[in-house]
C-alpha cells in the first residue's frame, strides 16, 4: 500500500446533481432500501394478491350480470374497482385498509432507526442540510407509494379489461386518475404520520405501534366513537322529529370529517360512483325534480369532494411539518 492511496483526491467535489446538497443522495439510497426491503415486498405482495383477487371476483360477477341484463351500465369499468361479492370486499376496500399500512411500514423507523443504528450522527456530520435527510426520506417513501399504487391500478385495470371486455371511457379514466391521486395523498398522510412518530419516539417498536394504533383507531373505532358523541351531544328522543335527526346526523358527519380515513372513504365513494350526489343527508325537497340514479358529471363530483382533498392534503402537510420541525430542533445526541 503506498502513501498515495491515502492522499487527498484533488478533484474538487462537484455538485453531484442540482438541488439541495445531499437530498438526491438520501432519496436514492432510501428508495433503494425500500424497494429492496422485505417490508415493502411483503406489503406489495399482500396488496397485489388481495387487489387482484377482488378484481377477479368483481369482474366475473359483472360479466355475468352484463350477460344477463344485456343492458350496458355507463360506468361498468368503474364497477370493476368498486364491486364486491359475498366472499370478497371490493378493490377499493383493500386499498383503503392496506395502503395506510404501506405508508406506516415505509416511515415508522425513518429517524429513530438511524439514531439507534448510530448512523444519524454520521449523516448529520456530512456537508448536507439537516432537512435533506427527512425530506429525502419522505420523498423516497412518496415515490415508492406512487409507483406501487399506479402499478396496482394499471394491473387491476388490465385484468378488468380482459375479463369484462368493455373499454373505459375518458370520464372513467379521469375518475380513476383522481382516485389514484387521492389514494396517494392518503397514504402520504400515513407516511408523514409514521415519520412524525419516528422523530418523537425513541424506539422503532414504539413508533410502529403508535402509528398502527392510530390506524386501527381511525379505521375501526373512530366511526363508533363519533356516533356515540353525536348521540350524547344531540340525542334523538323522537325518531320522527326531523330537526333532531338532522342535528344528530350533522354532528356525526362533521366529527367524522376529522378522521382522515372517513375523508378518504367519502372522497373515493364520490369519485368512483357518479351516482353519489351528496355526502350528507338529503331532504326530500332537495331531490324533487332530479332524475333518480342519474350520474353526476366529473366536475360536480370533484366539487363535492374538493374540501376532502384539501383537508387530506392539509393533514399530510401538518404531520410532515410537525415531523420536520421536531427533527430540526432535536439535539443530535438527545437520547
Amino acid at each position, binding site marked *: 500500500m503506498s502513501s498515495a492511496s491515502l492522499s487527498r483526491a484533488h478533484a474538487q467535489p462537484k455538485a*453531484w446533481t442540482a438541488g439541495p446538497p445531499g437530498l438526491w443522495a438520501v432519496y436514492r439510497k432510501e428508495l433503494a432500501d425500500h424497494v429492496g426491503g422485505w417490508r415493502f415486498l411483503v406489503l406489495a405482495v399482500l396488496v397485489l394478491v388481495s387487489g387482484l383477487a377482488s378484481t377477479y371476483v368483481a369482474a366475473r360477477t359483472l360479466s355475468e350480470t352484463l350477460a344477463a341484463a344485456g343492458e350496458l351500465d355507463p360506468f361498468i369499468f368503474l364497477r370493476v374497482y368498486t364491486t364486491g361479492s359475498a366472499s370478497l370486499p371490493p378493490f377499493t376496500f383493500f386499498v383503503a385498509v392496506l395502503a395506510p399500512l404501506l405508508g406506516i411500514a415505509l416511515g415508522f423507523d425513518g429517524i429513530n432507526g438511524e439514531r439507534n443504528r448510530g448512523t444519524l450522527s454520521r449523516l448529520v456530520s456530512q456537508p448536507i442540510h439537516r432537512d435533506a435527510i427527512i425530506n429525502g426520506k419522505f420523498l423516497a417513501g412518496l415515490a415508492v407509494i406512487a409507483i406501487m399504487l399506479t402499478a396496482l391500478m394499471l394491473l387491476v385495470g388490465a385484468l378488468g379489461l380482459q375479463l369484462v371486455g368493455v373499454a373505459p371511457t375518458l370520464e372513467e379514466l379521469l375518475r380513476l386518475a383522481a382516485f389514484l391521486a387521492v389514494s396517494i395523498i392518503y397514504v402520504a398522510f400515513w407516511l408523514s404520520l409514521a415519520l412524525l412518530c419516528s422523530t418523537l419516539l425513541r424506539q422503532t417498536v414504539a413508533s410502529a405501534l403508535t402509528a398502527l394504533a392510530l390506524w386501527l383507531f381511525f379505521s375501526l373505532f373512530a366511526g363508533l366513537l363519533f356516533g356515540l358523541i353525536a348521540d350524547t351531544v344531540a340525542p334523538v328522543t323522537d325518531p320522527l322529529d326531523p330537526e333532531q335527526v338532522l342535528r344528530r346526523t350533522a354532528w356525526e358527519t362533521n366529527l367524522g370529517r376529522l378522521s382522515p380515513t372517513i375523508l378518504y372513504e367519502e372522497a373515493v365513494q364520490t369519485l368512483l360512483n357518479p351516482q353519489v350526489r351528496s355526502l350528507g343527508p338529503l331532504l326530500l325537497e332537495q331531490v324533487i325534480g332530479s332524475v333518480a340514479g342519474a350520474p353526476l358529471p366529473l366536475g360536480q363530483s370533484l366539487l363535492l369532494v374538493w374540501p376532502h382533498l384539501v383537508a387530506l392534503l392539509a393533514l399530510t402537510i401538518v404531520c410532515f411539518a410537525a415531523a420536520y420541525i421536531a427533527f430540526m430542533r432535536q439535539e443530535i445526541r438527545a437520547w
Partner: protein
Amino acid sequence: MSTLPSEQTVSGAPAQPAEQGRAVEQPATLANGQARPPAVIEARGLCKRYGQHWAVRDLDLVIHEGEIFGLLGPNGAGKTTTILMLLGLTDPTAGTVRVLGHDPWREPLAVKASVGYLPENVGFYDDMTGRQNLMYTARLNGLPEAVAKERVQSLLEAVGLAHAADRPVRVYSRGMRQRLGLADVLVKSPRVVILDEPTLGIDPAGIREILDLIARLAREERVTILISSHLLHQVQQICHRVGIFVGGRLIAHGSVAELSQKLAGGAPLVVDVEVEPKEDARRARDLLAGLEGVSSVDADPKTGRLQVSCSRDVRAKIARTLLEHGVDLVGLGLHTYGLDDIYHRYFQGGDAGEQREPVAGARPA
C-alpha cells in the same frame, strides 16, 4: 492490517514526532522559533449549558495545522459536547468557535465539508456492504461517481478492509467497523478529523492498528486530528499535545512531558525507596522518619517500598542511614511524575456534576 508500512511504529514517547526531522509539520517544535502553523480550530470562552448543568465552561483551545491533539477526560466531562459545538451540531451558550476560519453554527456546510467526524459508537447500515456505506457518504459529499469509486477503493485498502469490502457490515467485527469508520471519515478528504473515543471496545492489537493509522494519516496528509478519549495511556502515544478535560473545564494542556513537569512543580520532593527483605520496610520507616528534612514516610511491608516526602534531596542520607542500621537497600530514586500520576491527579473526582475550582496550580497559563 498487513498493508500498513511496518517502518512506522508508535513508540511510547509523546515527543517522538519532534525527533523525526520533519520539523515543518510538527507544532511541538515551536520552541525553536519556527513559524507557528495556522490555527485550524479556535475556541474562545466556549460554554454550553443544559438546563442548570454546565457541560462545557470557558473553554479556550487552539489547535494548529498538522497537530494531533488528545482531548482527555473521564466520561461525562464534556468532550462530546465540545466536539458537537466544533461541528456546529449544537449551539454554544456563550463564546466563539472558528474551524478553518468558519463559524460552525452559522456556516455548517463549509465546516462539515472539510471536517471528518467519527462519532462514538459509529454505526453503519448493516445490510449494505462496507463499500456501499462508503459510497453513500461519498455521494452525500457530492463526489462525482467515478472519483468516489476510486477513492473508496483506495481507502478500503488503506484501512485493510479491501478483502471484506463487499461483505455486509453486519458480519464485521468491532475493530473492522471502527476501521471502516476511519475510512468513512476520510472519504471527503478532510483537513480536520475529529475522532470520538476511537479505541473504545477494541482489543489491544486493534487499538494499535487504529492508532498507527491515525498517526500515519496526520503525518502523510497533514491532517489535523482531534482525538477524544478517556484512555490516556493509549492516546498519549500519538498525541503531540493533550488537554485534560474534567467537569466541563479544560484544566491543563500541553505535551505529556510538560504536564508531568507542571505536576511536579507544585508538589513536595518524594524519594522512592525499596528495601530487602520486605518486612524491613516498617523498621526502615521508623528510621527515616527521624531524619532531618523528611516530612513523612509511607511504607508498604508487602512490597518493601517506601515513599519519603522531604523538603530537599535526602537520598544520600537515606542510603547511609539504612546501611548503618543493617537494612539492605535495593532501590533508591527521586519520584518522577508519570502518566498514572497525571491521570490520578487530574481525573480523580472527575465525574461531571458540581464543578469545583480546578486543582490548584494546574490551571493552564
